[in-house]
């Protein structure tokens, strides 16, 4: 049985600047990283592998260099990887992305039963948190979002029990398998790759599925299949802070000023 981990390669956003003139992201020279939220999804799938013997397949849609990210997944312990890459997949919004990913999972499920699909809660470049739910809806899987713990999985009874972390409370939810589980960053601490695995990953085969393979209707994928359009990207105005006191030479006074101001603004109740 499979655990499919969906990972995305994203620009290291802390290093991305917005072009002040065109309003677009300057991606040049910015290194790519695996979406930090997705590292937790991958880790959770690897833990399911350790706990229940599931086979882990990491999938990703992106340009050909996404292969690097998938190799990282292999180094961490994924058994297989599928790269969904084709010109016509480019420029996709969450709707079109979930389309391709869902179809890929469907293809995987034809070969081997899928127990769970794991997604990160959101990405750091898009921040929409829609792709996971999109996949679940398209595939008709149980949809479990904001999961910070997978309590138990019963593969024969096809049941999973998870803990969802909501704003003010946690809830324990049971759902039938297959399920799409979107995990939060608190779900786990991702492991670190061992060198022999890294070396093995360096020349392992990353399966490529392009649209010749997938045969999806070009109207439903990529830019054409997207319903959202980015009109403008800009950095939100940030209210300028003010400097209160001198914390370095007089920390006590500075602390008093700070607490006073917080009470004044109603942010602190004593």
């Amino acid at each position: 049985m499979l655990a499919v981990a969906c990972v995305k390669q994203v620009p290291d956003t802390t290093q991305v600047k917005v072009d002040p003139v065109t309003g677009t992201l300057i991606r040049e020279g910015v290194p790519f990283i695996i979406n930090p939220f997705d590292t937790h999804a991958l880790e959770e799938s690897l833990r399911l592998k350790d706990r229940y013997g599931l086979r882990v397949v990491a999938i990703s849609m992106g340009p050909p260099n996404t292969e690097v990210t998938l190799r990282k997944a292999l180094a961490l312990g994924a058994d297989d990887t599928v790269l969904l890459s084709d010109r016509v997949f480019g420029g996709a919004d969450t709707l079109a992305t979930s389309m391709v990913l869902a179809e890929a999972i469907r293809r995987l499920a034809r070969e081997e039963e899928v127990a769970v699909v794991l997604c990160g809660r959101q990405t750091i470049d898009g921040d929409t948190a829609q792709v996971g739910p999109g996949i679940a809806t398209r595939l008709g899987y149980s949809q479990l979002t904001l999961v910070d713990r997978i309590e138990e999985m019963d593969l024969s009874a096809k049941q999973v029990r998870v803990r969802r972390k909501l704003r003010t409370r946690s809830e324990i939810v049971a759902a039938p398998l297959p399920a799409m589980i979107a995990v939060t960053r608190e779900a786990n601490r991702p492991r670190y790759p061992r060198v022999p695995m890294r070396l093995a990953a360096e020349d392992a085969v990353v399966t490529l599925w392009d649209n010749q393979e997938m045969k999806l209707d070009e109207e439903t994928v990529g830019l054409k299949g997207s319903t959202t359009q980015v009109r403008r990207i800009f950095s939100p105005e940030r209210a300028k802070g003010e400097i209160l006191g001198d914390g370095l030479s007089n920390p006590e006074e500075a602390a008093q000023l700070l607490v006073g101001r917080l009470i004044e603004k109603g942010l602190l109740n004593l």
Partner: protein
Amino acid sequence: MSPDIVLFAIVLVAAIAFFGWSCFRRFRLVTLGRPDNRFHDIGRRLGNTLLYAFGQRRVVSRPFGVNHLVLHWCFLILLAANTEFLLGGLFPDYISLSRLPDGAYHALAFIFDLVSILALLAVCAALIRRAAFTNPYIGGLSRDSVTILGLVAVLMVAFFGMHAGEIAQGSEAAARYMPVSGYVAAAFLAGIPAGSLAGLIGFFWWLHAVVLLTFLNYLPYSKHMHIMTAIPNCFFKSLVRVNTQPREEFKKGNIFGVGQIDQFTWKGLFDAYSCTECGRCSDACPATFTGKPLDPRLVIHDIKANLIANGPRLKRKVATVLPLIGNGQEREGSVAEEVIWECTTCGACLEVCPVFIEHFPRIIDMRRHLVEMQARFPEELITFFEHMEQRRNPWGIAPAERTKWTAEAEVSPFEAGTTEYLLFVGCAGAFDARNRRTTLALTRILSAAGVSWGILGRDEICCGDSLRRLGNEFVFDRMAEENVRMFAERGVKKVITQCPHCYSTLKNDYRQYGAELEVSHHTELINNLIKTGRLKLDKAGDPGKVVFHDSCYLGRYNGVYEAPREAIASVTGQRPVEMTRYRERSFCCGGGGGRMWLEERLGRHINVTRVEEALQAEPGTVCVCCPYCTTMFEDGLKDKGVEGSVRVLDLAEIVAGALK
């Protein structure tokens, strides 16, 4: 043949056979180790052997070491006497000192007599010292030490009993030349009837024989094995300063680091057999000193115990019984994981070991195993490792911020041909607010002296020092290759660093990658600039009483001790005040070996301990020359609540403060 001789022959052959078998059992295990060429440059090796093994240069550097030197030489001389004794026992008609020409016979009799009393006195002194006024690291009257010292004492007593008897009997032709034996004969044996005398001589002769053979057979099973191994270990000692680790070849199927005893090199194993358990390394170790579970002597001892436990099984290719890296529950022969992470790689242990055992390289071997094969390490390291891989600096700060500090200085990019030196700023010097002040001070000095320098700017990446010392050789390897490639592409030949860790890494570690850089630490460069008159100082910028702290990676790793002291003297008019432990014996700040990025959970804090030592000198300024030391000392001073009255300044800041 008399029945006595037959009996003795049987005893002797059995004893020697058992000794030979013991040695074979022990030493054949050394061949389990991986290869390490320690046979080149025989001439220098022989020189080292003379100086350190026979001359005991390091042993005598401690007050009581002379006693050991005396015993060592007595032992060597009496080796001849005892060979004569054993062979003479077997072939009394052929082998005897008395068969030598008179001159030689008398001289040897005289020497053996004197040396024996010297040995007896030295043994007594050692026993008294262990019992009465020992340093804690010596370990007092351990069973091992009492046994061996006791055996030697009895051996000497038997020697005198035997010879005194012969003198009293009148059968010793060289009696006149044996003052001590002669004295014993006159004082204790006068008037004893001939028959009793013969019995006494026989008794002492057998006592001597039995004790001697017992001693021989005890050696391979005790710390006194060093009597056999210390001399070769000095011969095999590293011919260069041990300031780097060997590269690993990242090929599929290789094993990385050491997780099982046979993955050490043979020298690592032989080291373990050579330990004299003198405790000097424990005494020098900052981790041991501050009450942490790491004790370098025990690490070496555990390697030996593990080899003895697992070696024969590995020879037979069956599973080992004792893990090399344990969880702290095992008794002897396993090094606990937490121990492995406590080492600051300060090198103090190596510096004092009289037999040149290489302690921390073994610790790094085991770290490599934990990181590379097991991905097991203190949890705070995962962020550190990931920051290094993703952002090429320890904090994970965006690389674009590497040049932020340049807003306050006039800086140009390094260009081969136009700029002479590359200023390799280092991560701390570029990102850390406190250490940027050092960088700025250094740039002021360079400009004042008219040095032509430039930086790599945003393209600079971490040198990887902490990665390597923490055992993450895989990531270090890639970063080192990247750096070396960049240096070659940009035509970098001369480098200035303000961080001893960058300094040592670029200078020593990168050599393994083919980089032949001329690297100067800023202390060396600044001192040269002052000495050659290129830097004009104004003595007015007096920083008060200056106490100096040696950075491990500058001092012990690279032998730079004088440059910073001379530079301080140029500013203040006098050499800095020294702490109790300084130069080769300096005590680490606690930040090396990747410890900068680890919590210090066990024992007292190393930095606070060092700050306390510095405060004893009542300084106005603690002068350091390493960004880690700066941070460690500032934190330590805050801990002591004296950050208002004592300052921590980098040498560059002190000198910059005195610029005209």
